[in-house]
């Protein structure tokens, strides 16, 4: 069905079925600011829209008019709102309306009103709509893997209508394509914590840590998995500082040359503040990175507290991560003496 063809060319004033309606011009006043140079077809369409909106006329012709108005400016939430009122009053087929919205969304994937309209429709259609909505968001994401609206909508669909079965696998695919896709990592966290098909964060933790560690080792400069790793221990810092995989990972990264050490150092700093007892290897790895001439000698090393290690880390970061020099200085000042 091709809506955008001859049907739309005729303006209301050219159609006999609108002859009984007086178009209502916009009350801009004599000297409006930010006045937009509307094209004649826009002005006329909106004048007729205002008339039916004011009259609260919920008819088929009004529905068609909202379509034309939407084509001209999909961002007009008043038009969308009125369209919903008409759809309800006329008991229109909402699956068909979904077809309609899908077409409009093709060129407007970042338009809030369109996604809001979709959510409204899907809610009314219920769990049967889940599959279609997941497919739709997948399509949008295939062109724009980080589209915020698409991800929000997808999450809403999963929580309200279901369809969790393939979600973790879908997430994995996206990460395979782009391990730097933070939206996909965020979705993964959502699935791990919220999916009724999985055991919850604690149950999933071990396998997730393995997955994340592998991702980090492949690209230690990738911030996403580092934050994800931290997130796996949210509200459970004891498990975090005691998991050997975490400190082993940090050590591995810190002892690799030509590698970005910032996130590893930052992680160790956080671990320390939550009570990690650092191993000798970890201390040495950090000391090796310290460009300062005053390195701790072995005597001091054995008696140095975790806080002087924290101090050293902050010093290293002040140079290795110069953009955040003020942040690292602040972190240093926050270390408990």
């Amino acid at each position: 069905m091709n809506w955008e063809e001859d049907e739309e060319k005729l303006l209301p004033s050219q159609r006999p079925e609108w002859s009984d309606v007086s178009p209502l011009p916009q009350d801009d006043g004599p000297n409006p600011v930010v006045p937009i140079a509307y094209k004649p077809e826009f002005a006329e369409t909106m004048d007729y829209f205002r008339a039916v909106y004011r009259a609260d006329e919920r008819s088929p012709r009004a529905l068609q008019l909202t379509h034309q108005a939407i084509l001209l400016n999909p961002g007009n939430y008043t038009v969308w709102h009125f369209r919903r009122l008409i759809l309800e009053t006329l008991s229109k087929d909402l699956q068909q309306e979904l077809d309609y919205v899908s077409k409009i969304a093709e060129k407007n994937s970042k338009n809030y009103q369109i996604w809001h309209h979709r959510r409204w429709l899907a809610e009314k259609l219920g769990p049967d709509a889940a599959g279609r909505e997941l497919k739709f968001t997948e399509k949008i994401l295939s062109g724009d893997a980080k589209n915020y609206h698409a991800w929000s909508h997808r999450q809403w669909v999963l929580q309200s209508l279901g369809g969790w079965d393939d979600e973790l696998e879908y997430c994995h695919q996206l990460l395979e394509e782009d391990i730097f896709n933070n939206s996909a990592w965020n979705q993964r966290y959502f699935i791990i914590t919220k999916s009724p098909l999985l055991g919850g964060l604690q149950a999933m933790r071990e396998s997730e840590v393995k997955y994340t560690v592998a991702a980090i080792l492949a690209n230690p400069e990738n911030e996403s998995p580092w934050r994800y790793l931290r997130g796996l221990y949210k509200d459970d810092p004891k498990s975090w500082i005691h998991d050997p995989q975490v400190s082993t990972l940090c050590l591995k990264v810190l002892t690799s040359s030509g590698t970005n050490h910032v996130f590893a150092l930052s992680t160790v700093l956080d671990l320390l503040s939550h009570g990690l007892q650092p191993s000798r290897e970890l201390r040495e790895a950090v000391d090796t990175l310290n460009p300062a001439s005053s390195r701790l000698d072995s005597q001091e090393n054995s008696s140095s507290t975790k806080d002087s290690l924290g101090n050293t880390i902050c010093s290293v970061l002040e140079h290795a991560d110069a953009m955040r020099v003020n942040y690292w200085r602040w972190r240093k000042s926050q270390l408990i003496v």
Partner: protein
Amino acid sequence: MEGEGAATERQRRATASQVDQWAVQDHVFKIYGAFASIPRSAQSVILELQRDKHVEYLTRGLQQLGPSFVVLDANRPWLCYWILHSIALLGESVDDELEDNAIDFLSRCQDPNGGYGGGPGQMPHLATTYAAVNSLVTLGGNKALSSINRWMHDAGEIDVRACYTAISVASILNILDDELAKGVGNYILSCQTYEGGIAGEPGSEAHGGYTFCGLAAMILINQANRLDLASLIDWVAFRQGVECGFQGRTNKLVDGCYSFWQGGVFALLQRLPAFGGEGFGTSDVEVEWVSDSTSEGDDEDRDSSDDNEALHPEQDQEGHQSSSHSPESSTAVHIQHSRHNQLEPLFHTMALQQYIVLCSQEQEGGFRDKPGKARDYYHTCYCLSGLSVCQYSRSKNENSPPLPTSVLGPYSNLLEPIHPLYNVVSRQYHDAQDFFSKY
């Protein structure tokens, strides 16, 4: 779980994120490199804020907009706010006629039952209400302020931005109460993600715009300490990249508008008592900025050669060599070694100014997202707002002007200070406070 083979294979093949990021980095570093290679005198010119051009661009927008703006036909109060606020930041004002026209127009956007729509005859909407109210506060004066019909509104939990716009408006109009705040705190709390930033809805990705809205809203309802602030600060600190500007989300691209959304978060945090700030006070208390090193200390540091440390773009460990250096001129980037570390702003204010002025500023007027993108009023507003945040990040209080060392380029680049909770110019905010406190 993947094997080592797959991991190495992926390492060789650059991902879409990496490709996009390196393209932007290259462009930005070319600009910094070119800047570094021109003579001092030319550098000074480029660092200048093109005030006249900006005001011209902005005023023109207030007077007329082309047909392509039809996509913003339901956002005209936003256009008003972006333009009027930008003009106010530049220390200018619109002529009386334009001012009257603006007040008149906005009153036509007002709904009889309260709130403002995107245009005359449109339904009221929280976001457009926020924009309209902020526009009128920015214009200031009896006529503008008395044109607002104050009304009570159910915030609803649509998303974090809705919470902020509702609470911000209620607060500035002095009609904020417990009823409105109830439930909002729990909702925003549930929107803080595992990354530390705040999302638009529970479960969504941490995002700069929503982080600002969420934190500001929490502060306005006195519940900021319920957030995991350490985690929030860590997230936002890492949003400033090698390009010197801010990104909105992890592993996404730098964008000038985040100069305010992310930079503003720091401005808010600095004022919190937890970080040595004086809080936000009430209208009858002079709000003091966190003070830092004495001017004596600053002068000393400025003479030290250690301080003229140019910002070096990091070399990606894939071996991808980005274009070399950034400005070495002391009028450009340098890091202040303050004596009082913990009171320094927690982000790199000079670097951000560098991005705004060299990459976002358009010489013909207006600001843009990033090099290669077109200017627009939204980015003009938030780049200037972010610039103001940077300039005032070390100010003792609103009455003592910032030190020249806080301002990138000539001191004449100095903008007006903003109130970071509402993003309106401080003076206009206080005037509105006085006006509405009488009710």
